């Protein structure tokens, strides 16, 4: 079996204020073992919803999601999610936040702190072990959340715009570190981003989604050897291609919001 995840005809409807919103419409795709897959699409197209469904936090309205052939019924440690929002436990310092997953799974204190320190070092936050979330910037909190998910050693790492709050340099370092872990530990990554450049730099394949309701517009394999050069001709070619595919959808989603605001509906 070469697919770790199979997303089969998955749709998700939300009901809020007596209005039904079709967030995700009949999505079908596979994720291969040890694949790095990115999802890009206009905001509000259902990217977070897809990740949350894979994580098991949200049930598909129809269709099903399989992991290693078994239907996903709820959240579990083998599918770690780095949320788009800030989610550190505010009463725990950085070290205890990163060690949280290991603590839950009963890893002895000494061992889990050792692992946690290694990941804190990886995200470049040595010296902040004792700091509390309220003392950290948003970008730092997000890095700690990444360390927390990776330290828990999930088979599938789901990441929802994890680098959005970071400056360009930190972002580049973390992209590099993420690729290192992914290669070394044979992880499968599903990565949501709004940066096409980031998607091309990191991914084996990039899924482009349509404006809401989210469907798959295109899937682009990135056939470039790593480490990739962001200024190489091929790299720029891929970027342009994906930006072009995305452009119409972003426009559509922009107009959708405008019409919705004017009461014409969408």
């Amino acid at each position, binding site marked *: 079996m070469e697919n770790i995840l199979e997303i089969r005809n998955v749709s998700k409807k939300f009901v809020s204020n007596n209005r039904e919103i079709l967030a995700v419409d009949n999505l079908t795709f596979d994720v291969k073992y040890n694949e790095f897959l990115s999802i890009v699409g206009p905001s509000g197209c259902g990217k977070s919803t897809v990740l949350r469904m894979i994580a098991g936090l949200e049930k598909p309205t129809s269709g099903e999601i399989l992991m290693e052939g078994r239907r996903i019924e709820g959240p579990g440690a083998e599918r770690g999610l780095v949320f788009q929002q800030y989610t550190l*436990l505010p009463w725990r310092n950085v070290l205890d936040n990163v060690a949280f997953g290991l603590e839950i799974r009963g890893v002895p204190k000494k061992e889990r702190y050792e692992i946690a320190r290694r990941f804190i070092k990886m995200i470049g936050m040595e010296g902040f072990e004792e700091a509390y979330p309220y003392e950290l910037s948003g970008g730092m909190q997000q890095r700690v959340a990444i360390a927390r998910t990776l330290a828990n050693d999930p088979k599938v790492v789901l990441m929802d715009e994890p680098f959005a709050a970071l400056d360009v340099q930190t972002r580049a370092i973390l992209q590099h570190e993420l690729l290192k872990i992914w290669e070394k530990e044979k992880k499968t990554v599903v990565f949501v981003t709004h940066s096409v450049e980031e998607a091309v730099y990191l991914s084996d394949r990039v899924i482009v989604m349509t404006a809401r309701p989210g469907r798959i517009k295109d899937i682009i394999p990135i056939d470039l050897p790593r480490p990739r050069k962001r200024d190489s001709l091929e790299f720029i070619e891929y970027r342009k291609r994906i930006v072009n595919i995305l452009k119409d959808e972003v426009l559509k989603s922009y107009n959708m919001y405008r019409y919705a605001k004017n009461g014409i509906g969408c």
Partner: protein
Amino acid sequence: MNLRKFIAPLLGLALWELLALWLNNPVVLPPVEEVIKVLINPQISILGTGTLLDNTLVSIKRVLSGFILAGAVGVPLGILMGYYPLVMDLFDIIIELLRPIPPLAWVPLALAWFGMGETSMLFIIFIGAFFPILLNTIAGVKGVPKILIETAQTLGAKEKDILLKVVIPASLPSILTGLRIGAGIAWMCVVAAEMLPGSSAGLGYLIMYAYSLSRMDVVIACMIVIGIIGLILDRGLRYIEDRYFKWRYLIK
């Protein structure tokens, strides 16, 4: 320290002293120094009913017993009600009906059930402290951001971990607020309960007894002690809240 803050209290004391001298009737208003004399000699027996210190300790002991009991029931029940809809549905209506009844309205029933004495007082204090503790605990648990629970779930947390490692720590600030408010009300209740017939010790008792002997200096001294202890209780718990729960401002 801001000296301006002391202007009004000092003026008040001066006014009291002048008024007392002018009235020259300690049964209505004793002079300041008489009250101070009682306060600075807390170990001297007053009117043959024990010392100010003893009576204060009796009240404190009662309040602690009632308060601890209220916390021991209110906090766990609040956590269960906040977390499990089933428990909420079981108790919700009873709580909503009993909550608006002032603790002192329970006095006749307490006397009928437990007779005059310690148990009745304990019951009144319990009732007073219980509801703020319960309601704040429920609010704290319900206010735990869902995303923190989801975070724990994606890290592999089961129901027990979520309750012990997310829900309870996250609601601790709110629980502590409930305990602080509960302690304040318990303190008010103990004084009131000690004024009931059949009481034979405590600050509330001492006040009423001193009143019956027209010893207003003792009455006022007791009132001041009651006020100071209430203040210390409140400030102490507030200090803990600020010192150990700074992070709570992060939970929105």
